[in-house]
């Protein structure tokens, strides 16, 4: 039955390929837009100044009491709580706001704003706090001496100091006692063309309040959306030019 074999083979092949493609889409879709595959940064290539990573937080879609972004960040980076919240590291936090005049309530996440003119970068005595070419502000923990001056300087209270001995760190997120840290925009994901964990979690939770992307890419979703809706930066009067923008404040 060569003729039968020839007719079923194409279908099997088709099904095989279709399921492979579906698997590909399903596994990549949560963290990647397929159209961006062409722009994937190879592992041996340095971050480039042609890109400026940023985020738009839509406070109108953010739900008070939802901690999906916070929990995702904690899981991704191995951040655990102790019995003393004042010394717990928090790379992202939900802030509940009440307008002092009108009483209107807003909820939104605050994380490192990845400023273009970051005060934390300016004040670090060893240069451990630095801004990567593509706009992500990081702490080089090989050089950090734990002086905490950057924590004094940050207008957004974005940084945390590790007060205890840590074990069980995630491979992609080295963290240790005596150094300072803050949100990295999940740089290990971004370098492999995925979105930060908080953005992914917010999408999965159905709120889609966080949009991450390249601020320099005028054709990209982030830049387009910033051109359409009202948005502002936190404490823009300070001139830090954060990469994170907020809509609905």
């Amino acid at each position, binding site marked *: 039955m060569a003729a039968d074999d020839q007719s079923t083979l194409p279908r099997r092949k088709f099904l095989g390929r279709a399921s492979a493609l579906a698997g590909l889409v399903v596994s990549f879709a949560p963290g990647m837009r397929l159209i961006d595959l062409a722009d994937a940064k190879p592992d041996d290539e*340095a971050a480039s100044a042609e890109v400026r990573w940023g985020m738009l937080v839509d406070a109108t879609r953010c739900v008070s009491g939802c901690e999906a972004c916070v929990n995702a960040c904690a899981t991704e980076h191995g951040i655990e709580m102790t019995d003393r919240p004042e010394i717990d590291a928090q790379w992202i936090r939900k802030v509940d706001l009440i307008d002092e005049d009108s009483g209107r309530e807003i909820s939104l996440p605050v994380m490192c704003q990845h400023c273009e003119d970051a005060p934390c970068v300016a004040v670090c005595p060893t240069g451990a706090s630095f801004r*990567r070419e593509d706009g992500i502000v990081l702490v080089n*923990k090989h050089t950090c001496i734990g002086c905490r001056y950057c924590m004094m300087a940050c207008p957004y209270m974005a940084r945390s100091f590790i007060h205890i001995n840590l074990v069980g760190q995630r*491979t992609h997120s*080295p963290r240790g006692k005596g150094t300072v840290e803050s949100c990295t925009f999940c740089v290990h994901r971004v370098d*492999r063309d995925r979105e930060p964990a908080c953005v992914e979690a917010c999408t999965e939770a159905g709120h889609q309040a966080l949009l991450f992307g390249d601020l320099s890419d005028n054709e990209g979703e982030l830049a387009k959306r910033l051109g359409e809706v009202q948005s502002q930066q936190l404490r823009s009067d300070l001139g830090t030019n954060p990469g994170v923008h907020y809509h609905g404040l």
Partner: protein
Amino acid sequence: MGSVWHLLPLMMLSGVLPLSVMADEPTFPRARGERCVEPVGVMRRAHFEFLNHHGQQTVERGIRTGRHSLAGCIGCHAVRDQHSDWVPVSAPGQFCDSCHTYAAVRIDCFSCHRAVPEADRVMGN
């Protein structure tokens, strides 16, 4: 009979030899995999330079090639114990600790870096 001073070099030598035998040469569990990414002699002399350079490149520039990554070392050199749990490479007698204790050089890596392989390797450095 001779002067006791003639015996002095012999006494010194006899003091030194046992001492050198007393210091244990470093031993550690055999790594998995066929061979290391660099020759043993090169690794002994220069592993910290590879690690430091690779670390700086990754942190400062986002270059994430795996050849000299710390996670790469751990991936081959970590072993499991009798309960099938990974043993940290910084634990006594393990890969990193044994030579470093012998040479009395402090390791600065594992206050921050994970010392065992991670379950999912997709997000390795």
